[in-house]
């Protein structure tokens, strides 16, 4: 057990936005909420997964909806606690032993910190993705057959809904509709789990990893190259490309941002091209027409010089970035994982291949 203070929160916000692979929202507003919650209630306890009891009960907390709405209409502050307690009551659980994030992302890494601070509950060092994904069933708990329902959903007005659903895709459908009606931004509690389930099905150590990544990126007076080396060795990542965004094409379909960006190589990647496809999160990267990384592996864009994460919404012509690829958590690389979040689920006509293989293939063809 250790405490998360203001500095830790600053780092986690940056690191989680990096792991958010372009999605998960702008960390700024999430960070402000978390900082004002700990200022009021004191630092939050962080438990590692080994420190929790198998039979204890935990409920994650998350925000659902459009990051672009959140920057304008953010929560009142007590909804997190309301929705969390409502679900606990509905489940007939008197004792909830902690909360944890659903995904790594600028906003959803911060919401559970707010809940933990307000309820004086520990935060557990795990999540259900190890990155960000756009839909509720895209969670490692789902792969192991854990139900997202019952789900409690609320807005800042005080409306609360509970859904019991037949499967996790239905949870996504119904919660998505409610979210839009609630003003495109809602708070949810779902995937309630036991300690044993967290140990088996969660992505462990993610809060600490986010914090470490954030600390490296935020280090002042250090060379970008230096910081990057450390970042890649921490995450087993690859620097895929150095480039400048020359075009961004966006299209909104079924409540999501689809799009594609073209990058033109600079420095290390001079005279090369890259295309990155995204649906809120970055999902596929092609270098000179060859796929070099694909979902569920992580494709992270960072500012060329500061290494600060670049969200999909802030993509802009002329921005100089580095494209970094990280291997996904092994749970995503299983047959069920690929079926749930692989390239074909998102409509890309590719069989999944791990980034390590794609890289060594690219290197081989280069020689």
């Amino acid at each position: 057990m250790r405490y998360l203070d203001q500095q830790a929160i600053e780092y986690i916000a940056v690191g989680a936005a990096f792991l958010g692979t372009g999605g998960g929202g702008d960390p700024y507003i999430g960070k402000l909420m978390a900082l004002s919650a700990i200022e009021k209630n004191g630092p939050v306890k962080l438990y590692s997964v080994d420190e929790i009891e198998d039979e204890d009960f935990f409920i994650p907390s998350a925000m659902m909806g459009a990051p672009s709405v959140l920057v304008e209409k953010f929560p009142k502050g007590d909804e997190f606690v309301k929705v969390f307690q409502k679900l606990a009551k509905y489940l007939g659980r008197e004792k909830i032993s902690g909360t944890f994030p659903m995904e790594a992302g600028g906003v959803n890494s911060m919401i559970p910190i707010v809940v933990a601070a307000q309820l004086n509950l520990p935060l557990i060092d795990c999540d259900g993705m190890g990155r960000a994904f756009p839909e509720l069933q895209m969670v490692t708990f789902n792969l192991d057959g854990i139900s997202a329902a019952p789900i409690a959903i609320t807005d800042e007005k005080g409306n609360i809904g509970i859904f019991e659903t037949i499967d996790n895709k239905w949870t996504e459908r119904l919660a998505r509709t409610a979210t839009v009606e609630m003003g495109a931004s809602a708070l949810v509690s779902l995937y309630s789990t036991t300690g044993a389930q967290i140990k088996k099905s969660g992505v462990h150590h993610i809060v600490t990893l986010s914090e470490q990544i954030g600390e490296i990126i935020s280090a002042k007076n250090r060379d970008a190259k230096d910081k990057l080396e450390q970042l890649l060795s921490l995450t087993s990542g690859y620097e895929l490309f150095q480039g400048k965004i020359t075009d961004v094409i966006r299209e909104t379909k079924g409540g999501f941002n689809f799009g594609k960006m073209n990058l033109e190589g600079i420095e290390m990647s001079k005279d090369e091209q890259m295309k990155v496809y995204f649906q809120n999160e970055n999902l596929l990267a092609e270098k000179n027409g060859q796929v070099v990384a694909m979902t569920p592996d992580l494709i992270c864009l960072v500012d060329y010089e500061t290494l600060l994460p670049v969200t999909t919404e802030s993509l802009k012509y002329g921005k100089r970035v580095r494209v970094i690829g990280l291997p996904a958590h092994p749970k995503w690389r299983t047959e069920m994982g690929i079926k749930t979040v692989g390239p074909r689920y998102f409509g890309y006509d590719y069989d999944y291949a791990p980034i390590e293989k794609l890289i060594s293939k690219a290197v081989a063809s280069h020689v």
Partner: protein
Amino acid sequence: MYRIGIDVGGTNTDAIILDEHNQLIHSVKSPTTLDIKTGIVTSLRKVLQEAKVDKTKITHAMLGTTQCTNAIVERKKLAKVGVIRLGFPATASVPPYTAWPQDMVEQLTGNYALVQGGYEYDGQVLGEIDEQEINDLLEKWRDKVETIAVIGVFSSIKNDQELKVRDLIWEAYGENYTVSCSSLIGSVGLIERENATILNSALCHVIEATTTGFANALEAEGIKDVEVYLCQNDGTLMSIEYAKQFPIFTIACGPTNSIRGASYLANIKDTMVIDVGGTTSDIGVLQDGFPRESSVAVEIGDIRTNFRMPDIISVGLGGGSIVRVEGGKITVGPDSVGYKIGEEALVFGGNTMTATDIAVRLGLADVGDKSLVSHIDEGFAKQVQSVISSIIANAIDKMKTSSGDVQIVLVGGGNVIIPAEIPGVADIVKVENGGVANAIGASISQISGQYEQIYIYSRQPREESLKDAEEKAVKQAVIAGAEPTTIKLVEVEEIPLAYHPENATRLRVKVVGKMS
């Protein structure tokens, strides 16, 4: 018919007179003074005395000034602001002034209220405003605050609540009371827009003193019945009345004026401009004669805002940049001898090797005594020049949006240090009278209007939405003093919203017209 343009820079206050064909009649420089005002008066008096034009034929006077920026950075002369945020209970988790520097909050007194109101992302009502609640608050704040900032959730979609609150304030405090409505200042992003609106409010005394001071200075010089304008940071002008409502838009007008003036002098509307000063070089991109807008949140005086700012980068390279050799590696800048170049540079008998000394050694410039740099090895000088070239090339590359070579327009007192060959640059245009490009930029500015809203294209087709936004932007431009027949559309930005089932798009348009 003449126009006077004045630009207050960090070092000099420039004044120029142009005729009706925008031909430069005369220009002067005088040092910028601590109070700014004295420098303006001095330059104005000097340019009028030296140019000897008929004062009755002066029709327009434009001022580009840093007073508002300075007030924020130095935390001086700021007003006591009351902040009213419409949206409660939403947004209460992050109250106004969160993450502000404490000294700034103290200056502004930190008064705020979260009240009912606001809209949803699709324009539905989030909460109705409660007039009684507002009136009670105004009673409580009477004599406690000097100006009020009103910020509504999603007011960029619908701002009638903000305007209604403004009316209530005027009813309570009188119509001369200054009220800043966020929908007229910033874009989507409540905290950043709120911060910009608060700063705008805080500047109400500063802008009053600035505009009155300028008008008085003109009158004291016998210039009467002129149209007086202030420069905005997007390369357009605002009338005195408009400036009093939106002082924050004067921030960063200097670099904008400079790159616009340069493009005007070079007669090129789409280009990249490099303004080389003594310590830094500013690089900006002009599209159809206007600076590209920055897309990132901008910090002013350590406060995060999102109102429009020109996309201009600054690199630590100028005429006074110090040249060093450290461990066999040549560096140029980022530190500079600055305004002491006349004493410290080698060519002026000093002891510090500067970028200007290298230019003189290579015969690119003829200032000072060139015999004082003849001892510098030519090969070494060329190496220094290639370091300068790569600093500039790198900065230019950051501003480019395509890989092709660009044309650059070069201005500013330090421009002699820039080599003729730079990677990624097709050709370099040097302009005459480049030294007063900023004052010229101030004088040739036009008048703009801008409008931003989230439209749902499945309910209001794109063409119709664009037309609606353009009409609203034109209205803004006319209020700011543009001649309606000359107004044209210069910019359209569309950003689709994530997770929205219909085609919701944030649309922003900008129009520009000539002064009426």
